[in-house]
């Protein structure tokens, strides 16, 4: 078997809040090969961004628990201290396109400077050199180099998103985490960005962790799909398997709620609301909304069942 580039094992990230401990990432494992994309899909608030933050170790101050192992190129980067992590891993090996980043570009700094910033911060590069590299990065994402001197307000939404992607690319990382990289864009612009991401992936042999709530969109990049529910990954499957027939009841329902353009189907939705991550339901976290729930589901927490060739499902139906 091919060696994994990134191997996340039993990752936990809990937040301390006044109302209680939020179990935003609760024992998550996933692996990523070079050039491969894992899509992380799930409802809002299920912990997708938290997972990303846990991997790139950009944690808020109120962390209650941060545990697990993250093996990058055979080395457990969880063991690095913050300084080393910042120097050797963040942005150098793994970078990230943050959710909504295009709308939080600094309005008073030129686009080129913002793209170059990671180089200046993480590699202590001189401004001139960094700006040169920023020009190259902009060209890579399909923006003319002259745009280096533009301010964010002079850019369209699609261009801003490209700038943000250039920021993630500029340090030549192996892995880019994309957190909802197109959620504020039009479908045509979105399709253009997805095209760009596909091209970059092939040209640079990038691995993506692609976070989205849009299942249809996830199929644009995903080699593997991880379905998150209430802080857990409840299903992990190959794209071929997943988009044809997801196995976990939640994934199945989620798929049924996706309106399709080209085919007619009966739309379905998941009744009820997503659970609290402070007091998640006992047993299977999906049981209050699951049409197939039976006795055991309410009492025992299902463990990941291996259905073969890297297909895991956390559901008692498959045990």
């Amino acid at each position, binding site marked *: 078997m091919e060696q994994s580039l990134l191997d996340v094992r039993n990752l936990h990230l809990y937040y*301390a*809040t*006044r109302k209680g401990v939020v179990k935003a990432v609760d024992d998550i494992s996933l692996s990523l090969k070079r050039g491969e994309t894992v899509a992380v899909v799930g409802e809002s608030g299920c912990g997708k961004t938290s997972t990303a933050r846990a991997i790139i170790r950009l944690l*808020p*101050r*109120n962390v209650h628990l941060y545990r697990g192992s993250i093996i990058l190129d055979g080395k457990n980067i969880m063991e690095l201290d913050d300084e080393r992590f910042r120097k050797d891993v963040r942005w150098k090996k793994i970078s990230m396109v943050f959710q909504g980043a295009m709308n939080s570009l600094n309005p008073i700094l030129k686009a080129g400077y913002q793209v170059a910033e990671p180089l200046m911060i993480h590699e202590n590069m001189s401004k001139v050199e960094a700006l040169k590299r920023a020009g190259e990065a902009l060209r890579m994402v399909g923006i003319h180099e002259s745009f280096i001197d533009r301010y964010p307000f002079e850019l369209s939404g699609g261009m801003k998103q490209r700038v943000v992607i250039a920021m993630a690319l500029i340090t030549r990382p192996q892995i880019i985490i994309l957190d909802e990289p197109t959620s504020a864009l039009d479908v045509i612009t979105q399709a253009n960005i997805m095209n760009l991401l596909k091209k970059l992936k092939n040209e640079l042999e990038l691995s993506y962790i692609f976070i989205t709530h849009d299942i249809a969109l996830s199929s644009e990049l995903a080699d593997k799909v991880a379905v998150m529910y209430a802080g857990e990954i409840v299903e992990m499957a190959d794209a071929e398997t997943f988009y044809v027939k997801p196995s976990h009841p939640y994934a199945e329902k989620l798929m049924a709620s996706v309106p399709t353009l080209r085919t007619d189907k009966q739309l379905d939705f998941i009744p009820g609301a997503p659970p609290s991550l402070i007091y998640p339901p006992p047993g299977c976290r999906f049981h209050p909304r699951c049409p197939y729930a039976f006795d055991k589901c309410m009492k025992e927490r299902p463990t990941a069942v291996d259905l073969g060739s890297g297909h895991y499902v956390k559901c008692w139906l498959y045990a």
Partner: protein
Amino acid sequence: MGAEGMELGFKGVLKELLAYKSGALGVVILVFLVALSIYTVVAIPYDKAIKLWRGEEEVWIENPRNAQPIWVKYWEYLRGRNLPETIKRDTSDSKQYGVYKSLRAIPGTNLKRLYIEFSFKYEYDDFPSEINIFFSSKFNESAPILRIAWEKPGGNKIELLDFIPRDKYDRLYLSIEHDVLKVLRSYVEEKLYALGKNPEVPLSVEKALFAVEDESMSSSLTVKPLKGTYKLIIEGLLFGKDSDVDARLIIYGKVYGMCGTDHLRRDLTIAMLWGLPIALSFGLIASLTITFLQLIIATISGYYGGWIDALIQRLTELYMILPFLPFLIMIAAFYKLDIWVILAAIIILNIFGGGIKSTRALVMQIKEYPYIEAARAYGASSKRIVLLYIIPKILPPVIPGLIGAVPGYVFLEAALSLLGLGDPFLPTWGKVINDSYRWGALYKGYYYWVLQPSFMLILTAFAFAFIGFALDKIVNPKLREI
């Protein structure tokens, strides 16, 4: 999301506030300050306070001048020094310990012989600050003749002077009585010569009267107080059948009350206590009125836009560059500056202050909120939108600023008083600092005089600042650490 304060309700905000350490501290201090103000206003009603504060020296005649607060005594006590407190002896109070009075007619004449003996124990490590005797006499044709003598522990007796009260009420300021000083000088010199010493720095009346009679007497810098029982003896000859004399001896100490006294013997407790409700209400009224007026002006400006907006904005800019203090000083030149005038001036000089800019920006932002548009879509009038939909939304973000601005106005009032522009009648902290400054408190070592009002100012400022900061975090969750 925008303002959260409103959504939490009062109880919710309080709960959140107490969850922040600074917020909780601020609330505790503020509750204490408010309770103290209420107590003050009830215990010393305004009229009484003003009367006391404005009262001439008469009101305070029995207080020492510039006495330190009692807490200084406790502090010094720990360091092994017992500071003197005021001692009073009064013949009209027959039950008092240490007072003996006899008045006997001399048979065959219409003369009477008076004998008064005040005795007291003096156990302090410092000298008193002043000694006075107050007489109240009854006589018809001629005034009584009194001879006043001092007896030190151990029995040394000094004839101080003969005194004839000129009036029904008369007083003898022993400390500044020239004759007494002369008598004591020669007394001290005599003692020193006997010890083979020469006088160096002459002693004041109090020091001479209470001195340990050894070499240390030679200088006022080395002299030490003698502990033991002292006596003041008044012998007199009275004329007429109904004649009588009562005397009151006051040995002024060096400490007095919770807060000490000022140069006019006034009990500073009154100023410290009354300064509080004045500062609180001044700060709150100023901040509240200014914030509220700015809020209304800013809302009108932001919501209606157009020329009204332009006018208000230009006015605001004009106000922002106008020098504030010179204006107040000018106003002070024309008007008697009582606190209301100061308040009004501060309010007027601040209505178009910088707060308008930020509130207007907020209004402009809220105006575009979908819920305002929804309200227009279902037919709400502009008036309803402003009053019911916009104002409640800007209140929460404005309130921390309101609270946070209170100390500014409290300090401003104090600063004006310090500059001599304050209300001269009210016992305010600023006025006390101004007095202390004028009377050289720091130079003379009367630190309490400056420190106490400053402490109260800072405490008040902290209470509001802490609450303001915490509220800001609650209302603007972006500032929240979590």
